[in-house]
């Protein structure tokens, strides 16, 4: 493998891991709210969270492009107030991976939270534990297998993201080029050997992540 290829592998793995860490608090909070609370508009939010799973990734990417471009609602604010550009930078990769992998984490964590017997949480409260303490000492620990499995799935999904990423981040060598973008590009320009080497790496990474995810789900079942 060339230095350039290694850079692509590291960048992809690193941004995927970072996106998983970033969506974790939001994903868990949302999953908990969906599993344990009833609130107006819940079904709408539920649907929105799942949308990126079923919509064409390129379409999701287009929406993000419109929102985060310099003339977009969020992108304009970031550019003017914080002098921060997102589109066609590594931040755009991070954004695309986060949005695309979030549904997997939320769905897995939600199921895991729903499987925790609410009576255990209630009795923990009668023992003097506040809501936050109950969440961290009872709910999260009992749902840990499902949550970890969801994190690994989200990570694996991020590794392979293509459509949304190419819309918002382009494919800039050394800056925003990820494994899938590089594979596509190498095939396009006839560099099949490069493509196959990167293909091998993505298979190994994805296999490991999914296998670990299944391992955590199976454990103690």
């Amino acid at each position: 493998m060339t230095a350039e290829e290694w850079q692509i592998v590291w960048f992809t793995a690193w941004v995927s891991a970072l996106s998983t860490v970033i969506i974790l608090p939001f994903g868990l909070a949302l999953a908990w709210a969906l599993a344990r609370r009833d609130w107006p508009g819940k079904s709408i939010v539920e649907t929105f969270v799942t949308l990126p799973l079923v919509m064409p990734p390129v379409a999701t990417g287009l929406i993000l492009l419109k929102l985060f471009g310099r003339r977009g609602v969020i992108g304009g604010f970031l550019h003017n107030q914080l002098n921060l550009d997102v589109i066609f930078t590594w931040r755009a990769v991070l954004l695309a991976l986060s949005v695309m992998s979030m549904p997997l984490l939320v769905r897995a964590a939600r199921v895991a939270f729903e499987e925790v017997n609410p009576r255990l949480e209630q009795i923990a409260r009668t023992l003097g534990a506040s809501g936050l303490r109950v969440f961290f000492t009872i709910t999260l620990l009992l749902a840990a297998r499902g949550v970890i499995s969801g994190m690994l799935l989200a990570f694996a999904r991020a590794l392979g993201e293509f459509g949304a990423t190419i819309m918002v981040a382009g494919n800039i060598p050394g800056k925003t080029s990820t494994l899938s973008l590089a594979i596509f590009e190498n095939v396009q320009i006839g560099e099949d050997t490069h493509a196959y080497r990167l293909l091998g790496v993505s298979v190994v990474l994805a296999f490991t992540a999914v296998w670990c995810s299944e391992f955590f789900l199976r454990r103690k079942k």
Partner: protein
Amino acid sequence: MSLLLKNISLSLADFTLEVDVEMHRHVTAVFGPSGSGKTSLLDLIAGLRAARSAFIQLDDRTLTDTTQKIFVPTYQRGIGYVPQDLALFPHLSVRRNLLYGCKSGGANDPSFRFDHVAEVLEIQPLISRGVTELSGGEKQRVALARALLASPRLLLLDEPLASLDASLKAKIIPYLARVRDEFRIPMLCVTHDRFEALALADEIVVLVDGQVRQTGPVSEVFTRPASAEVARLVAVETLQPGSIMNINEGLATVSVNRVTLTALAPPTASREVFVCIRGEDVVLQHDTVTTSSVRNRLPARVVSLHPEGALVRVELDAGFPLFALVTRAASAELALHDGKAITAFIKAPAVHLVPR
């Protein structure tokens, strides 16, 4: 303690739970058939559910008042709760379960110290185990200890014995009685078992379909049920303190107000018992029979007759107040009237002995 439950109204699936009672005794049993709203009532007191309208006050502290929008969150109520399924945390060891609610720096009340609670409930040998390695009775004791270690001001017990078989029940009742006597903590105990209520409680609240049908001292509710419905539910018309004089071949000889009765020996060693006899187990006859399989034959005098639908509840003086339920026709044939002499027959297995 005083626990006030006022204007409580909570819609449940099949009925509305409506409660308006004051509890002042040490141990109160909430008694009723399954699905009568007993657990929902405990959840309201613990603050795990919110009712449309409720006023709940424990001693001088208002916990819930819907008119004033007061709702003390569960974790600040200081109410221990042992639910029917015990809810031991499966991912924590027995020790960490026990310490979960332990106040750091020790409890205000030294009687809730870890060592003391562990000693009273005999859980020292269990501490290093995992929760899944405990037997049913051990789980029960750990759940009780865990609730006590949080130094509660009131202990709620939901069907503490329902999941245990008869021999385990007999083993757990003394522990519950010890908790009651040792910690002097007020307890509210939900049960549908009349003997459990009798063994533990001073006061009883009868709850049917979400409505309170009767409240009062246990002995009073059991001997003078306010309605035929409550009578059917408690089904113990005669309740008298007695003491076991001797036990021979599984049969106990009990003295009740100097009258001797034969009963099946109870599983516990306690000598002081309540003697319980259901009205329909008492047969009235003019004493012409010379030998009979019936062990208890008591000469009695009719004190009063209370018609209850197709039946007549006959209050007798057999050396102690004894109640019999007979049909109207039987009452007429026997020509029962106040002051009439008659013999009451009770089979030994119909005389239930409950430790007191």
